[in-house]
């Protein structure tokens, strides 16, 4: 059984080795005899070695102290909320080019604020839409009108 550090080391080592293998197909350039693969191989080799070392250290430590486990945190992390927040953000990023900045941002801020603090009263029900509207309008006008940033338009909405 390997622990969290062991898994981290294993992932780092495996990813580095796959990328290392991909560098073997790189062609050498006659102007730079060292070739474009020299430095990536050096870096990936070091990363793979460090990942492997982390795995070994974790295995050895677990053998020495097999019952060792981290103390449970005082408050159990709310990973479900973290996953939902990431999902909401991912949906926002994917919908930006489809719905356009204004619609996607309004929906994300509204949904995000309700997700992080579910509305339980008129004040919170009102806060969400107002915050979403204010954020969308303020950022849109500041960036488009004053800072010359052309924010995404939606291919579905044309807006």
């Amino acid at each position: 059984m390997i622990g969290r550090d062991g898994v981290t080391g294993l992932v780092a080592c495996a990813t580095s080795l796959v990328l290392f293998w991909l560098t073997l197909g790189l062609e050498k350039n006659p102007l730079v005899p060292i070739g474009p693969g020299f430095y990536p191989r050096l870096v990936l080799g070091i990363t793979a070695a460090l990942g492997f070392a982390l795995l070994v250290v974790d295995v050895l430590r677990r053998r020495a102290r097999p019952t060792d486990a981290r103390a449970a945190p005082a408050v159990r992390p709310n990973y479900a909320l973290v996953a939902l927040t990431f999902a909401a953000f991912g949906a926002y990023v994917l919908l930006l080019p489809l719905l356009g900045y204004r619609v996607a941002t309004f929906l994300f801020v509204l949904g995000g604020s309700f997700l992080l603090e579910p509305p339980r009263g008129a004040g919170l029900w009102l806060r969400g839409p107002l915050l979403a509207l204010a954020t969308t309008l303020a950022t849109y006008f500041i960036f488009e009108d004053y800072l010359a940033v052309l924010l995404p338009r939606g291919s579905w909405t044309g807006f």
Partner: protein
Amino acid sequence: MYGLLWDAIVNLVQLKYLLPLVIGTVAGVVGGALPGVTITMTVIIVLPFTFGLDPLQGLAAMTGVYVGGSAGGLVTATLLGIPGTPSSVATTFDGFPMAKRGEAGRAMWLGVWGSLFGGMIGGVFLIAATGPLAEFAVAFGPWEFFSLFVLALSMVAGLVGHSLLKGFLSGAIGLVVTVLGNDPVMGQPRLTLGIEFLEGGVPFLPVLIGVFAFAQIMSDVEKMGRGVRLRESLDRAITLSVSHGKVVWEIVSRPFLLLWTSFIGVLIGVLPAVGGSAANMMAYDQAKKFSRHPERFGTGTPEGIIASESANNANVGGSLVTIMAFGIPGDAVTAVMLGALTIHGIQSGPLFISQNTQVAYGIFAAYLLAHPIMALVIAFGARFMLRVVTVPKAALFPVVLVLCVVGAYALGNNMSTVYVLLIFGLLGYAMVKVDLPLAPLILGVILGDQIETNLIRALMTDGDLWLFVTRPISGGLLAASALSVGFALWQHRRQHGRGEAGEDAQDF
């Protein structure tokens, strides 16, 4: 030099530069005062607003954020006992007890004036040392630059986090990110994995924004809905009026304390990625060791507040020296400033001062002016900041994430940088969960291309690898890298022996 500095100050008091500086300082002070919103996150939020400005306007705003943020944390640290930023943790030790016994104004203003004096001492070092250090670095060849970057990376990897191995692995992952895309010497595509936007490589600003913003926000989101109180109550009866003459005298009558703790702040600032969080703790520790009454520390003694606050603002000056003389970011805030320079087509490094004299002296002037502005902002806005602390994070976080997206999008006016932001946001949070430090990753991403370019240049000039060791400066820098790794090993072992390092292992 002083003529140039005076010209820069006169230039900067024009409204077009003063306004971004004041806005940046206000944003920094408010961001610094908000527990859970770091200076890095504040500078990330401010970054997209600087894209449409000229370089000096943008850098003045960021310098304001940096100075304001370093001091802003003291407001909540002294009045609420909650450090607004990690760099004001030590301020709470004596600031809050002093405030609790009815001297809230004295506690806060000792911090403000301590920040101002410490910052000015850091400014003297910044202005006096940057030019000579840059001139020294101009003589560097590719061997010396390679060794300098290796030293920076090894120091960061060794000094942050609980595990040396994890620090190095994090730095190595940062270097791996830079080998994706075209090689920097001949522009030949490599490891693009068939993804079109990877051909140009991975831009470091969306990486930095993603890694730091998500690591911070998601770590707070974890605690939401679990009964953890994220809003603070405000004591409306608090009085902040004070005799400024007396407070200033309390500080200047302790010249050794002020100079020594400011020096510690500068020194920590010069070291890459150590930052204000270490500076204030180390300065507090030193102040206690040198005090005739160490037993009074922690009960509301002025020395504790002065030491912590003078060190964390002097640290800003030291950090700016490293980026302006060598092009190596001292911490995440200066890494964002480095990105802002790149966006405006300015190359940082030893030639920065000679090639961009107006911008360089403009940064010096902005740094000096930001300190009195910071004091004025706190004087007029301390009560408002205490109210801002009560802003619910459920409302704050979606807005911050939107600004991160706009900041990433505005870099190239396309979605590819936003996808990079999302991917590295996930990676940043994952790294926090597996206890990999973030600073080495960022430094690896920033320095990767330069490490490769200088290594290839050195080897193409002369294939003899021993030159890295036998050239005096390069050899000295590599020896310093080895020493820093040795020191970090010794430090980790000592901490492990004392049982200070937390046990990392956890079943998956």
